[in-house]
């Protein structure tokens, strides 16, 4: 009778140990996964910001604030009207939270004779258009665009398109 009781106790103890071990194992696995998941949340925020910037940069050139549109007979794709950009720069404070990114810049790649910042005085012989500036150091996503304007020579007007990069920056989560 004593032996049977002891065997039963042993069995119960065995089961209890297995259950505790199993519970501990699953808790550890759960904690590992949770830690891993929480660690990746910050990376996901950065990834989402990056995706938003990438999508924005691919669409921005064709948005009404930038596009050449009907002024250039809707002839060009990925075309930014530099005259519009110059006006937009003067009203950039109104657009501060409009696009949800930190900075928007246009950098003229070719031809680029000078490295001057564009403003009413230097336009059009300049290189960089700082449309939106937050002052924060961010990560840039960029895309190629045609930077076009109407020029005049010898009493005749023509369209002049140059090669530029439209750059959008966002803050990376650390």
């Amino acid at each position, binding site marked *: 009778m004593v032996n049977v009781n002891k065997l039963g106790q042993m069995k119960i103890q065995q089961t209890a140990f297995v259950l505790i071990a*199993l519970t501990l*194992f*699953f808790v550890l*696995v759960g904690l590992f*996964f949770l830690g*891993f*998941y929480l660690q990746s949340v910050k990376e*996901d925020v950065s*990834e*989402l910001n990056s*995706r938003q910037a*990438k*999508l924005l940069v*691919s669409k921005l*050139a064709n948005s009404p604030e930038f596009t050449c549109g009907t002024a250039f007979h809707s002839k*060009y*794709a*990925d*075309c930014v009207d530099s005259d519009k950009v110059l006006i937009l720069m003067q009203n950039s404070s109104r657009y501060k939270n409009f696009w949800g990114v930190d900075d928007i810049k246009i950098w003229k*790649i*070719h*031809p*680029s004779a000078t490295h001057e910042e564009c403003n009413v005085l230097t336009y059009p012989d300049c290189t960089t258009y700082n449309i939106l500036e937050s002052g924060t150091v961010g990560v840039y*996503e960029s*895309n*190629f*665009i*045609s930077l*076009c304007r109407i*020029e005049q020579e010898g009493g*005749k007007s*023509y*369209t*002049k*398109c*140059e*090669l*530029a990069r439209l750059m959008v920056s966002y803050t990376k989560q650390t």
Partner: protein
Amino acid sequence: MRKIAKKGQEEMVGFGIIIVIVIIIGLVFLWLYLAIKPNETNMQDYEVQSFLRSVTQYTTRCIDREYIEINDLTYLCFHDQRDCENGDSCQILEDTLDSILDSAWDVGEGKRVRGYEINITVLELDQAFIKTIYSRNKGILNGSSRGFSEKYMKDSKWYDITFIGYYD
């Protein structure tokens, strides 16, 4: 003896069931992890596309024809029309594209873009090859490639500009 053997079998079955449960739970975690990972949007395709579009719209100088776009310059070059102020049309096309490519793409080992190749060809309406007007490659031409082709038709000929970028 038989009792001990049966007990051993029971323990083995229990152990097997636990392993199966652990594997199933592991798979569920793995599936959850993969399901919540956002899909990558490939923007490199768009970069190559926008580059080609912007290049074909680029305005260059050719005095007799005044300011013309690269698109029109390829047409002049194919028809061997040497009526530009500063050299023949093919030379201006080559100089302009060489200069644009050098400014736009910083390529090489360890860079984001390892290399590129660009070809401008003229094709018949049935896509039969006629002539290569411009061809250039630079850097390392292997790795993950992204290509795009911009085509336009003029005087019953296709003008095809193809650009392939090799990314790291």
